[in-house]
């Protein structure tokens, strides 16, 4: 328990937050990286997932891809890219985008796929264009599952941003690796606790959003 109080002392010390290697800056970096990665991968994965879901083309590829991507070790990818591209932000960002695309793709695709065929058929028969069917019927009905994908992507990214510091970028991994190198367990623990807290808060917020975006009248989807 001694370590916890030390970690707590480190976490609550104003110097930790404002000093030369300010924790506030690390936290901001961590959040910014996460946001950047989610936005970039969403821009790639969501339209693609909607297209696959709406047209039914490439369905198997998406299923296989999102399964297989789980096997790729992110530490391997980030170190390999860092050797190739040099230290800094590009390697971790690319790694994280690769990591985030499969769950986002799966969320976007499976949401559309779960809309009952008779509903889209009826919408088409009433005279909606394919674009209107997608935007007015399929997308609203799929938001719950899509947010599920965003949530799991965001959690994975927040967790894996830690590795960015290993290849010379910022984020909350910085104090953790610094603590590891200097045998400062309080610092490692403090950074870890802060990251865990951040992830839990993010999870709660995103699950709240997931509940809100699910359209009323559709408990089942």
């Amino acid at each position, binding site marked *: 328990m001694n*370590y*916890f109080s030390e970690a707590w002392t480190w976490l609550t010390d104003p110097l930790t937050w404002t000093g030369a290697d300010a924790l506030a800056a690390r936290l901001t970096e961590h959040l910014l990286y996460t946001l950047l990665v989610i936005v970039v991968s969403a821009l790639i994965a969501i339209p693609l997932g909607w297209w696959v879901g709406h047209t039914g083309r490439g369905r198997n590829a998406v299923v296989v891809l999102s*399964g297989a991507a*789980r*096997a*790729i*070790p*992110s*530490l*391997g*990818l980030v*170190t*390999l890219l*860092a*050797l*190739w591209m040099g230290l800094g932000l590009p390697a971790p960002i690319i790694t994280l985008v690769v990591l985030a695309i499969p769950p986002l793709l799966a969320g976007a695709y499976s949401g559309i796929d779960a809309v009952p065929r008779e509903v889209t058929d009826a919408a088409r028969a009433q005279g909606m264009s394919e674009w209107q069917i997608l935007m007015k019927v399929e997308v609203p009905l799929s938001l719950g599952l899509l947010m599920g994908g965003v949530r799991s992507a965001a*959690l994975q990214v*927040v*967790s*894996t941003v*830690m*590795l960015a510091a*290993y*290849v010379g970028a910022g984020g909350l*991994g910085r104090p*953790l*690796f610094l603590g*590891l190198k200097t045998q400062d*367990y309080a610092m*490692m*623990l403090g*950074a*870890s*606790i802060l*990251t*865990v807290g951040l*992830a*839990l808060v*993010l*999870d709660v917020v995103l699950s709240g959003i997931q509940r809100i975006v699910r359209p009323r009248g559709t408990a089942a989807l």
Partner: protein
Amino acid sequence: MTWILNNLPLLWQRLLEHLTLAAPAIVLSLLLAIPLGWIAYRYRLSRWLLVTLTGLLYAIPSLPLFVVLPLILGTGIRDSINVVAALTLYGLALMVRSVSDALAAVPAVVVDAAQAQGFGAWRRFWQVELPLAIPALTAGLRVVTVSTVSLVTVSGVLGLPSLGLLFTDGFQRGIPEEILAGMVLTVVLALVLDALVALLGRALTPWRRAVKA
């Protein structure tokens, strides 16, 4: 390529080390998930509690968990028990839900019929409900297997021996072949274990193959 050929024994050793971290976690998460999943399925309050708790577990980042666990378990920071424990927790997060959902998906008619024929609760669980839940369990365990094998590598940054060590070592010494070999081995190991789980699931459910044939 020459690096790989010159270091085959090292690669083999790392692979075995990797397996000794991943396999216990996978097996443990299955074994623990069955009773926990049953409790979650049986009692509504515990279901809510277990699903919420394990859901939160899943949200906890792995590297920080590796760091925090030694304090709770009283182990050293480089003890492999931390990694097994952390990965078991992640496995549980997914499997408890899989088990309780799978049990809930067993048709009520079947359970009812078993009861009517005089199966007691214990027998009914082992001989009727659990076998019928195997396909869903297999699906859950496959996901756990693949992500566990991949997650073990993260422990490499703490210096624990596994395929992950090839990444940190290769990075520090600037040997891309070493990293690449580690990645390929990790993916291959994940896919092989995944195939084993899938085969086991098939072998245990002969009645499903009969229908498809």
